[in-house]
């Protein structure tokens, strides 16, 4: 017997379907179904996954695209027999979705009336209106309508069957058999019940009345189906399945054509643009090898038919350029010479000739990848440009599928099982997902969950099941899909939670599977900072800088000298603690070293244990060798040690014999392996392939470990290459124009790793003067001035927390030539009391108020702010003392988050409260491995995934930042200080490696009580 399942909802029918599209496909194939329709409710979000699995594993199963929809008392499954029907369905879903808020849909009768191609399987609801609907369907959609018969073995099923048969006879509509599948197998019923409960926002016990009473909505064997349904109904089902021919592979993406001037082909136009670009980029003529590369690249673009893609990105970046928005492209295709000529990137090909796989790979069969980063504060302008140019019908963001993660799973499953909220909060707060030695299940048991109890066992089982389940669609950070015709012919579009944003129902993997291209428009804070620095440099020195200018000047040894000292606070990418500790060991000397540096401090290389071999080989302590010539070609540029994602994939091809298609699947599995665990299926193949080709088993194992590590944070060379340019440019600016650089960083906050306070401390250490914020001198932004021949940053009014920009601007615009002279003169501008208070708190009224207490006391007197009394001299009426240094410090931090006055460590030391300790600037005099006591404010606490069991503390004292390493054992034994301390004393051992000094913590002593209300924000990275 043949059977095709025509009604099946996956977990993309959120909180209803209890199996993934992949599970459903596998099960349908296992049960020998001839076809499977994936018909999620008003959604096509799951179909591509089903399609991809069938295609990749070459299953003999026909996929039918469809969707189930409800309108009043009418419930129908729409199926797509052909491409026209598919476009129709996309349109109907888009319309219904666009009418409602995010997550909901609203169908209208017209939508159903307008169907011309879709098949309609009607699911009568047993209502009075059924007879009318039957007549309506027969009238408007004859020959394309069926009654869908379900068998759920429910109590009232007999009546329902009779009802349907009566309708069929009366309306002359044939009956077909449907499984109405929600689960791929019966044991998913618990999860299905839990999902129902989550949807109802109740516990399972509370919503018993809404639960399925049995497991009949799972996929059933063909034998069982043959028993349950009449053969004539099954016949109809198979007929319908046979009539469906649409395959998602038929979808062809049409690029917007308006980018090409009339009379030219896209390729002609691209060649023209590249030719113009070469003249700009290579003023002294194009070197012959580069000319050759350009020719090769263009041929490849033509062959693979990608010119539109490059033109689309070119158009976007040209808009950004015209608006003075700084940008930088990255990704495999971005590092091509073509992109350099099109000004998509500033990676100078002469400098990066070493770059190996720099372009779209023909054999790897992957689509070109170009992400463009824009200044984070101005990316919205670019997005608006795209919407304006292509219209909302033709441009939309890709979706990101938000899935159940550990925390959300615990919360929702726990609630459904009736576990109290405070207990769940307790679990969530106390499970450390980074702890590799103890999995979360064991940790929850340690926290008091009884694993042998019924609830306990169910809790753990259901969390495991639900993790990775999609919860809702969200918008991708910046992946745009732009098409020639209306997008909703291609894919349904729905509303995002941001107003005026629309997303398509597919995520980036889905797009990739169907070879649809997206353009990534991303935001990057460092670009804002760099652009602002360029502007300031021009304003104060007349020197005009650009990223391309810096890269074209080739490597500056002084810049690398600074980088090698790990003097990189504020510099792009290489400013994190882990990066900084690696810099003096790796000692970058040229651009490509930076590319390696950025990629090496990542989970991939570290988990694969690639870092130490690389350092040894680089320092000449270990000979560079290659297991084979083929491997040499892949690994030569990194001294035989695989560091980049591309190298690992290439290795899978040359050393383990993966085909291009397999390598592409491997790459994708890496990206999503945490979610799906798909990667393990490649392990055997990889190890076997490599052993067969004569590679050591150990080498193969290491490569696989590294693949797993990449899975978390895949870092390809193509991205590292672009990031290295920004790292170099920001280092260069920090070295030559520190005042402008720090001021721009401060103006671009929030971004990067460091707070304003930390940046200012660092600026001071680089001999930059910092001038306090003041109503008579500050602008809104932070500015740069020369004071006695030295560069100084004048803090801007924006540093005052809660002060509105409009008020700050008012104060600056209306400022008299000789400045404001009293509180009244500021308040007369119409500055409200709250703002005046904020100014007082930041001590910005210092020019005419003794201190902030006095300023506030004045402000609070209502008579002062009444117009009649403005000329009265304000007299000090109560005897209030001035704030102490410590109070000033506290107030500075509360009002601005920074302080230019004495450091808390200085103050506490002056009071004699700290005992004997060593300051940061004296640490270098201490011998390696000697005992030391340090004290500092905890400004950073980081337990990176790259270093298991280690927490890096940053302690700030009045001379600088001290790096403290705390091992897990130490932390566990001294939990109290480890978790809670704001001011920490550490007794430990000095470790020196080159110029880098660490303190390995032995004892942690919480000194926070000394700080009282000191408001220092420690940044936690989890």
């Amino acid at each position, binding site marked *: 017997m043949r059977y095709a399942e025509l009604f099946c909802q996956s977990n993309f029918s959120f909180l209803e379907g209890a199996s993934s599209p992949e599970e459903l496909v596998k099960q349908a194939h296992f049960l020998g179904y001839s076809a499977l329709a994936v018909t999620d409710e008003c959604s096509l979000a799951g179909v591509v996954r089903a399609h991809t699995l069938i295609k990749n594993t070459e299953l003999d199963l026909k996929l039918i695209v469809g969707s189930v929809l409800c309108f009043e008392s009418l419930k129908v499954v729409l199926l797509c027999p052909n491409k026209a029907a598919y476009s129709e369905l996309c349109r109907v879903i888009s319309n219904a979705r666009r009418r409602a808020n995010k997550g909901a849909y609203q169908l209208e009768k017209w939508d159903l009336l307008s169907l011309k191609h879709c098949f309609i399987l009607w699911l009568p609801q047993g209502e009075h209106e059924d007879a009318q609907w039957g007549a309506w369907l027969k009238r408007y959609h004859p020959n394309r309508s069926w009654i869908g018969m379900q068998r759920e073995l429910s109590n009232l099923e007999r009546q329902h069957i009779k009802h349907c048969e009566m309708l069929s006879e009366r309306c002359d509509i044939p009956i077909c058999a449907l499984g109405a599948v929600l689960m791929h197998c019966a044991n998913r019923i618990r999860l299905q019940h839990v999902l129902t409960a989550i949807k109802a926002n109740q516990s399972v016990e509370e919503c018993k009345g809404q639960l399925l*009473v049995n497991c009949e909505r799972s996929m059933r064997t063909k034998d069982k189906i043959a028993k349950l349904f009449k053969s004539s109904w099954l016949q109809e089902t198979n007929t319908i399945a046979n009539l469906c021919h649409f395959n998602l592979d038929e979808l062809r993406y049409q690029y917007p054509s308006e980018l090409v001037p009339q009379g030219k082909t896209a390729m002609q136009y691209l060649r023209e643009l590249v030719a113009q670009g070469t003249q700009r980029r290579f003023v002294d003529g194009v070197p012959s090898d580069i000319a050759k590369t350009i020719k090769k690249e263009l041929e490849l673009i033509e062959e693979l038919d990608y010119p539109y893609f490059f033109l689309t990105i070119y158009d976007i970046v040209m808009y950004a350029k015209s608006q003075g928005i700084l940008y930088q492209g990255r990704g495999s295709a971005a590092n091509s010479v073509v992109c350099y000529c099109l000004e998509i990137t500033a990676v100078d090909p002469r400098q990066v000739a070493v770059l190996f796989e720099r372009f779209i790979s023909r054999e790897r069969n992957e689509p070109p990848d170009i992400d463009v980063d824009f200044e984070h504060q101005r990316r919205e302008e670019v997005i608006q440009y795209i919407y304006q140019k292509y219209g909302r019908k033709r441009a939309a963001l890709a979706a990101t599928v938000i899935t159940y993660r550990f925390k959300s799973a615990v919360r929702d499953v726990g609630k459904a099982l009736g576990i109290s909220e405070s207990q769940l909060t307790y679990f969530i707060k106390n499970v450390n997902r980074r702890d590799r030695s103890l999995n979360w299940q064991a940790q929850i048991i340690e926290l008091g969950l009884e694993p042998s109890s019924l609830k306990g066992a169910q809790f753990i089982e259901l969390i495991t099941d639900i993790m990775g389940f999609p919860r809702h669609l969200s918008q991708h950070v910046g992946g745009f899909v732009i098409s020639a015709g209306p997008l909703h012919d291609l894919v349904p579009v729905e509303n995002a939670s941001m107003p005026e944003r629309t997303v398509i129902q597919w995520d980036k993997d889905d797009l990739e599977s169907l070879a649809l291209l997206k353009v990534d428009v991303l935001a990057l804070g460092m670009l804002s900072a760099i652009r602002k620095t360029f502007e300031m440099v021009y304003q104060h020195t007349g020197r005009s800088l650009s990223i391309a200018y810096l890269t074209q000047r080739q490597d500056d040894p002084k810049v690398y000298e600074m980088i090698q000292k790990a003097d990189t606070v504020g510099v792009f990418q290489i400013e994190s603690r882990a990066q900084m500790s690696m810099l003096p060991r790796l000692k970058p000397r040229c651009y490509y070293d930076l590319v390696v540096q950025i990629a090496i401090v990542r989970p991939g290389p570290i988990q694969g244990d690639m870092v130490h071999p690389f350092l040894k080989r680089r320092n000449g302590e270990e000979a560079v060798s290659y297991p084979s010539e083929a491997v040499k070609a892949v690994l030569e540029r990194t001294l035989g040690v695989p560091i980049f994602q591309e190298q690992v994939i290439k290795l899978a091809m040359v050393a383990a014999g993966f085909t291009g298609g397999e390598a592409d699947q491997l790459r994708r599995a890496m990206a999503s392996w945490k979610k799906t665990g798909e990667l393990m299926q490649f392990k055997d193949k990889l190890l076997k392939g490599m052993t067969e080709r004569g590679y050591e088993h150990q080498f193969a194992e290491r490569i696989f470990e590294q693949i797993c590590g990449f899975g978390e944070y895949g870092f390809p060379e193509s991205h590292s290459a672009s990031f290295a340019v920004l790292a170099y440019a920001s280092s260069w600016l920090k070295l030559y124009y520190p005042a402008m650089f720090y001021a721009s960083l401060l103006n671009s906050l929030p971004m990067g790793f460091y707070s304003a306070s930390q940046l200012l401390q660092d600026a001071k250490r680089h001999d930059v003067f910092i001038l306090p914020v003041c109503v008579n001198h500050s602008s809104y932004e932070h500015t740069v001035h020369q004071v006695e021949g030295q560069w100084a940053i004048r803090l801007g009014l924006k540093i005052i927390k809660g002060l509105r920009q409009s008020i700050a601007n008012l104060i600056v615009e209306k400022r008299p030539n000789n400045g404001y002279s009293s509180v009244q003169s500021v308040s007369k501008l119409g500055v409200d009391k709250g703002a005046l*208070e904020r100014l007082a708190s930041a001590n910005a009224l210092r020019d005419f108020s003794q201190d902030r207490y006095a300023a506030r006391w004045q402000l*609070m007197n*209502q008579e002062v702010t009444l117009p009649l009394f403005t000329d009265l001299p304000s007299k000090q009426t109560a005897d209030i003392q001035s704030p102490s240094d410590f109070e000033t410090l506290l107030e500075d931090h509360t009002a601005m988050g920074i302080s230019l006055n004495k450091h808390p460590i200085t103050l506490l030391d002056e009071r004699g409260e700290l005992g004997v300790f060593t300051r940061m600037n004296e640490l270098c005099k201490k011998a390696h491995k000697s005992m030391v006591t340090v004290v500092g404010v905890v400004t950073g606490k980081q337990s990176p995934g790259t270093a298991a069991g280690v927490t890096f503390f940053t302690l700030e004292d009045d001379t600088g930042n001290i790096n403290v390493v705390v091992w897990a054992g130490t932390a566990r034994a001294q939990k109290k200080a480890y978790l809670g301390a704001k001011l920490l004393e550490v007794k430990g051992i000095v470790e020196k490696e080159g110029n880098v000094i660490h303190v390995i913590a032995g004892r942690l002593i919480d000194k926070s009580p000394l700080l009282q209300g000191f408001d220092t924000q420690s940044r936690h990275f989890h």
Partner: protein
Amino acid sequence: MLWLYLHFPQLQLDGLLAQSAPLPPTIIVSDKQHVVVQLNDAARQLGVKIGMGLGAAAAMSTSLSVYEFKVDHEQQRVEELAQWLYLDTADIHISAPCGLLLKVSNMLSLYPNLTHYLETIQARLLPQNVQYHYGLGHSPLAAQLLAQAGYDKIDEDKASLFAAVGKLPIDALTLNTRQKQQLLRVGIKSVQALLDIPLVELGRRFDTELVQYVGRLQGKLHHPVEFYQPTETFQRDLILLFELENLTYLTKPLYTLLLQLEAFLKLRDKLTLEIVLTLVQRDAESLCLKVGSAQGEYRAKKWQELCQLMLERTQLSAPLQAITLRVDEFCESHNQNEDLFSEPIGTMTHAGLLSLLRAKLGEQAVYGVTVLPDARPEYATSRCEPSVQALHSSFTENKASLLRPNFLLAQIQPLHDKVTLLQGPERISTGWWDGHNIERDYFIAQDEQLRRLWVFRDRQQRWFVHGIFS
């Protein structure tokens, strides 16, 4: 005027301590913010502090016992304490949620001196097992601040008391956070600094609430407080002239008490739902009988009837010496006369019947039935508190009525007879959440006597009868 303030910082914890000692590390956490509000020494030693978040506290130790803070509980306890103290002192103000303010001045004429007065109060609190701090003051607020700061000193000297208040930080004031912030932000950090500023100056800068507060603290402005009134309950004791061994002779004396109750209730136009009758027996435990009337009642005659039914079922274990009639709760008398035409048929209302049945058969013997939305037949109905309204609604509410037998067997029984299956299967396979999962196919079957049976087959293919259709 002198005031005494008693501050109870950990009433809920005190309650736990009274139940069992020693207590494991225990914290009490506020319900909204999940912040530690009370904790015992064992928890304190682990490093937990007041104001710490639950997560942070839990990270200190996994063996913490956590309780949710119950403000109602504390308030109730404070009222109880007030009730006790009322025996010793007249003017008590309940200062929510956990303090008592006692007016000392007038009481001093009844006690030899302040020390004696205070000792009496302390002696009264001793058996209550509560932690407290006290403070004296010449204004209610001053006394309160000192008590909350744990002053605990006998001192009635005005100057030295105000000096002690002056030394407190601004944070000790019972102002809201915003007001305290305002003061701190102009450099006023101690209460003394605040008191030093003339009220006029404060008036120009702060709201009247704060000015009034300072005035009251100084005792310059009147601070009205509401004094505690003991709650009204009805209680009458009756010592019997003769010891009774037969309860039928109790009718008359009981009736006199019930008449007093009737008078008491009539005067207040109230009804009561329950009376408590305590029978004091010689050399034996007293018997406590609760007699209820579901619709509320005040008439002695009706209560007499209900009591009679109860007494008929009661056995004395020793001769009866005295009885107490106590009523704690009253309810409003609502007009029971419905309109002329909708008067219930018969003389007995549902509620009346219910009271009668309960009195006759005992509380537990009478219950209602409610329908639950559980798919498992055994769990589809449940016993519930009988209520007059529920009788009508619960059966009609049941939505699309499933085909179910009217008569469900109390115990399923193996099917032995030969039957013909008429309809089915209806598959029920659910109930995993409470461990009583079932997997059954139900059928309607007809046996040889033409009875329609509700039968099912379980997973092991065994057949059972579960019900009979009418």
